[in-house]
């Protein structure tokens, strides 16, 4: 079994279970009142990273590009079993997908120069906020590595990553020679919960700090807008089980009954 060191890239995003507000300049979502979390697909990427590292005796490193507060998401990943963390501290809203890919590639190369290789780089398929669907692919081009997107599970054996994901007609299998890049979709693995000892360990890890390598070209964002709320036009059929008749009348008028 060849040791596989994994780098998992995560993003701090506003928790959007509540109302969405924008910053005054219309350039970002204001998460101050709703809280922040790790982007959904990346929670699964962290789980895969920890599993692959454990199975091969390798290391799982977590990386983020974001404001100082994004250290919270790094600590969370450390508490789940990642053993090292790197923080490129920057205002993520000024970085476009190509900028982020370039910064991740710079970290991979810098670590390699220090003797720390990242055989497998995992990212989420798309971030819950910016939804760009491309950072992983651009990173692969920066590094000259193969990449597959939309993957549910990854297993590593003998220098090959076997990645599986849902395709249009069924589950598809890819075999990627390492080093490689894989982007993960939620659904293939069950993210674990942190343990108390995991949290304690996470507190002791020194997070490596790196400045961005250059000024970002930016996301080409003109502005963000929240669409005005559509006035509710709901027709309430009634309350409780007594409405069953009215509901079935509706089904019949819509032509959905057998």
């Amino acid at each position, binding site marked *: 079994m060849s040791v596989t060191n994994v780098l998992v890239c995560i993003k701090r995003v506003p928790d959007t279970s509540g109302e969405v507000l924008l910053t005054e300049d219309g350039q970002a979502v204001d998460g101050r009142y709703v809280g922040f979390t790790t982007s959904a697909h990346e929670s699964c990427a962290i789980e895969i990273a920890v599993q692959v590292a454990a199975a091969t005796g390798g290391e799982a490193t977590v990386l983020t590009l974001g404001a100082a507060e994004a250290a919270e998401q790094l600590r969370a990943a450390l508490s789940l079993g990642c053993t090292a963390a790197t923080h490129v501290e920057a205002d993520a809203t000024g970085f476009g997908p190509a900028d982020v890919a370039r910064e991740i590639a710079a970290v991979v190369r810098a670590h390699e120069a220090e003797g720390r290789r990242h055989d497998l780089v995992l990212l989420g398929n798309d971030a819950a906020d910016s*939804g760009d*669907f491309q950072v992983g*692919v651009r990173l692969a081009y920066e590094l000259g590595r193969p990449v597959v997107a939309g993957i549910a599970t990854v297993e590593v054996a003998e220098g090959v990553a076997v990645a599986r994901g849902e*395709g249009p*007609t069924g589950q598809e299998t*890819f075999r990627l020679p390492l080093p490689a890049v894989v982007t993960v979709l*939620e659904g293939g693995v069950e993210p674990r919960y942190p343990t108390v000892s995991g949290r304690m360990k996470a507190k002791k890890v020194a997070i490596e700090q790196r400045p961005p390598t250059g000024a970002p070209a930016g996301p080409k964002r003109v502005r963000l807008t929240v669409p005005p709320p559509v006035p509710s036009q709901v027709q309430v*059929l009634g309350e409780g089980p007594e409405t069953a008749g009215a509901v079935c009348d509706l089904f019949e008028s819509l032509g*959905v009954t057998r």
Partner: protein
Amino acid sequence: MILVWVETDSEESTEVSLEAVTFARSLSAAGGGVPVDAVVVGDLPAGLGDQLAAYGVRDVHVATGEAFSAYSAAASAAAVQAAQQATGAVVVMAGGTNRGCEVLAHVAARAGVAMAANVVGFEGLAPFVVTRQVVGGAVLEQMLLDERPAVFAVAGHAVEAVPAETAGPGTLRPFAPEIAPADLVTRVVATDERPAGEGGTLKSARVVVGAGRGAGGPDGFAGVLELAELLDGSLGVSRVVTSLGWRPHHEQVGQTGTRISPELYIPCGISGAIQHWAGCASSKVILAINTDAEAPMVTKATYAVIGDMHEVVPAINEELRRRRP
């Protein structure tokens, strides 16, 4: 010229690709009638030329060769890029499936240009500014695509697929692009074909019955499952249900699950967080069943019943059975 990468199944173009072609035509009209071409990679379904002609497509560039016998995003992108360079297309677009976004991301990375995902409209041509959904559709972003080609994916169900008033020639133009060995490393090596009637049906179901936290636990789905069966529909659940392990992930409707567009969606005990709304907003009619009359799912619905799903749904099921001939 506008070039659309068209995804196909064994018989025809996918609906989402036809939506993208429809979007391309409105862009073409705004741009003084520039031609809309399609590029297809791999096996060509027999009627595809005629189908795309009906949607106003001028030329259908068909990439042929052994390289395309199994899907590889990199190889598909190489073919799309070859077609773009040969035709001088200034716009390259696709339907916003995961695969559509993946191929376009490769195209954009190769061309060294930006790419916009989840596009729902365009604001202007000079400069070219597109409107796209971010934060699961709760926020819109105006994004500048000032490089050529402009590369973007159209959000699924953002526009309705409509045939053109005047059909195009839909001329098939086969070409055999050279594909580098490195682009074939990421080919699909095996596909475990999904049995008919499993998974995938949620996306195309005419009726979807939804269940959320209100189900109460893994045993709380009997009523909604029966309702789905009585209406020949599928069960869809919210993210909290799959996160808690009550139901499998392939049943999830939402930003990180399946995006549905049924004739009728019946969310039961679902509050309607952004994550879920992102997946069900394209439903034609929504009948929400919820104890909370102020829940976003209720206020955004077409119809609502205020009440406990565990009381309301069995009553509906009983009435449906009673009315059966």
